[in-house]
Structure formats: structure tokens, C-alpha cells
């Protein structure tokens, strides 16, 4: 487990810095809160908007994701392209 995945759903982390897992659990938390908590309309709307933003971010991450492959060699990580 990496350190970052333990702080998933932290409201203070900007969305752009979050991993997919963090964005998704933040989304889940927002949805659950919206479903179960008694919220004022303002809070509910804020949460809904946040949910939408998180959703878009998730889809964006999935759509744009491209597997990064690196090679552990010598002292650093080199780019790796597998032979066809």
C-alpha cells in the first residue's frame, strides 16, 4: 500500500493531484453523504456539483489513461517499448 491511498478522499487534496482511486472514493463518499445525510439545500447542491466534478475527473482519467511502462535498469527508470 502506498501512502497516498491511505489518505484517499481527503477534501483538501486538489482533484488534479488525486489518483483514480482517491477521486472515486471521494465520489462514493459524496454520493453516500447525499443519500444518507440530512443536508441543507445549499450543502446538497454543493455536494452534487462536487460529485459531478469528481465524476468527470474519473471519466477523464479513464479516457486519457495510457499505460506507462518503464524499465528498471542501472540507477534509473528508463522508458520501455516492448518488441512487437
Amino acid at each position: 500500500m502506498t501512502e497516498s491511498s491511505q489518505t484517499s478522499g481527503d477534501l483538501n487534496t486538489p482533484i488534479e493531484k488525486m489518483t483514480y482511486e482517491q477521486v472515486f472514493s471521494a465520489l462514493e463518499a459524496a454520493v453516500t453523504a447525499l443519500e444518507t445525510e440530512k443536508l441543507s439545500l445549499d450543502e446538497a447542491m454543493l455536494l452534487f456539483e462536487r460529485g459531478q466534478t469528481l465524476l468527470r475527473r474519473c471519466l477523464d482519467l479513464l479516457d486519457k489513461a495510457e499505460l506507462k511502462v518503464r524499465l528498471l535498469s542501472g540507477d534509473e527508470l528508463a522508458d520501455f517499448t516492448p518488441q512487437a
Partner: protein
Amino acid sequence: MSQLPLFPPAAMTVAELTRYLRELLESDYTLRDLWVQGEISNFSRPSSGHVYFTLKDSSASLRCVMWRNAAMRQARMPAEGEAVEVHGFISIYEVSGQYQLYADVIRPVGEGLLFQEFLRLKARLEAEGLFDPERKRPLPRWPERIGVVTSPSGAAIRDILNTLGRRYPLAEVILAPTPVQGVEAPPGIISALQELNRRVKPDVILVARGGGSLEDLWAFNDEGVVRAIAASLAPVITGIGHETDFTLSDFAADLRAPTPTAAAELATPNQADLRADLTEQILRLVRAAGTTLDAQRWVLNSLKNRLSLISPQSRLRSDRQRLDEFIHRSETALAHCMEMEHTRLNSLSQYLESLNPMAVLQRGFAIVAREDGQRVYSTSQVKPGDFLTIRVSDGDFSAEAN
């Protein structure tokens, strides 16, 4: 020289003899289940799928046949000249009268010994607790960094990268290249595992190799490799060889996958599932927001109703209604007054009409006036010879008094 008996026993037919021999061989305990060692020659596999070959050593040869079903179960076929051990039973092919080995397993020479060694090492490591189920660690649901220990040029890395790219392109893959067979393989695999754990700290490590003979996969039964897998900080998934291949590395791993592709699949969620999860979240989000909005609307609505009951607007409305009533009542009253007035005026005008002197004239009366314009009411006002004006209903004329 003994004489031929007078009535010699009837001769056996060839078929009878051959069947007799066949039954003899097939009932022999040793020949029913044996391993034979030799070199492969005259190997042939016609389109029927059955496999024919001869097993030879320096001084003898043995015809062998392996039926198609058994041949298909064979991980790999031996090459011409290869030293092998063949398992099966001895019987006779009656058509040619040829005894032969009906084979079901072929393995390279020495594999039997390797297997003994494998079992010994397995028992030792097992007793040490290296394979205990309690040692198995949970795998991360969504690994960010995936370490891969395999050859950079084999089919395994290609399969793994294809699978990861398709299922979970969010991940970063760090390949720790190492030979996966031969003498360099065990130290290479051990150092790849250690380097990954020390420098990259991946969320999960795949240890993989494509299919091969038991000997090819032997590096993964190396005690050092097995211990390195057990000692890995990151959980390890093995995908070594094919479905049927089991290595000691598999026992030490946190999870054993039947192939490299399967290892990549077990390590990652499928993005199709992720998208389905997202769709579900969208639905829940919209539903929850809708519910909140509906509830809010309901509250708002009842507030609106209460508000409209107590609002100045509503008092205004009732005032307005009273006003309307006043207006209506006053209008009615006014109309009534008007009517009364009308009636009064009517009678008044009739009265006035009755006072109109013209009406009197019409009835035949006349108004008499003197020249000076004074009306004549009495005879005393007139002397004979006075000129009088006589006014009747439609005009006047003069007259002289006498």
C-alpha cells in the same frame, strides 16, 4: 527323435497365437505399468494425431505408439534423438504381430529426479511455514504501480502489457528485466524482486514466464527465488508456464495465476467494470440530488401555502373583497336613489305639465291682454274701445272691447 503322434493336436491359427501372446503380455504385472528409458527415433505424427516413434538404446529398440488423446495432453513433444522416459504398457499389435509400448506420458530423462528434488524442497519449505495461508497478503484493489519480474523479450511481458493496457491503463508498470531460464535466472529473479521492493515500492509484483518444459521453469523452483518471493514487501502474483504447471514460487506467492495474462488480470480491475461503477454513481448522485430537491420543493410548497394564509396579500385580498361589497352595495343604493328620483321627477313633470297655461288654452280658454301688455283678470281693467290681444292655443288675434 520322437515320433509324430498319430493324431497331432490341431495347429493354432496365427490369430489365436497372437491373441494368446497378447493376453499373456497384458496380464503381466510389470508390463502393465512401466517407465522405459531411451532415445527417440523415427518420430512421426500423421494427420490422425496419433504419435509413432521408436525408443532406442545402443543395443535394442522398442516400437511405441501414443494415441491422439494422450498426445494432446503432452505439454511438449520430444525431438528426434532426445533422451526420454516413456510411461505406458506393453501389448501386441496383432495385424503385424509386433509388440509395442502404448505410451501415455513422455518426459525428458532426469525429470523424474528433478521431481523428487522438487518434492523434497517443497516439503522442507512447507514445514518451515513459507507457504502458510496466513502469510498470504491481500492485493490492492487499484494498484498504481505494478512491478513485473520477467524477461523483457518474451511472450510473457507482451501478454502482460497488452492485458494491463486494455484493462487498467491507469497503472504504471515498472519492468525489472531478468533471464527466466538457465543458470542466470535464479540470481536475476532474486535481484529483480529486491530492487523493485527497495527502489520502486510497487503496490503489487507480477512474477511471470511463458510456457516451457519442466526444466525451463526450473528457476522458479529455486530455493533462493522462492524465499525472495516470500520475503517481498509488495504482494506477489505468479503467472508461470501454463495452467497445469505448478512451481514452488507459486506456493510462496500471495496469489498464483495460471498464466502471465491471468496474473495481469488478477492484479487489476477491468476498466469496463470501473465505468459501470461510475455509471452507478451517476445514477445514485442524480437520484440523491433529486430526492433532496423534491424534499426541498415539498417543504417550500407547504411554506408557500402557510405564507399565503398569513400574508398581507391575503388580508389585502379580503379588504379588497369588502371594498367590492361596499361598491356593490353603494351602487345598488345609488341605483335605487336614482329610480326614486326618476319617479319623483316624473310626477313633478306631470304636475308641471298641468300648470302649463298652454294646456289651458288647448282646452279652449284664452288669455286676454291689454295693449300695454297687462293681462286682463277683471272687467274693471277694460273700457269700451280698448284694443285687446286675445291669445289662444295656436296664436293670437286682436279685438276691440265694447
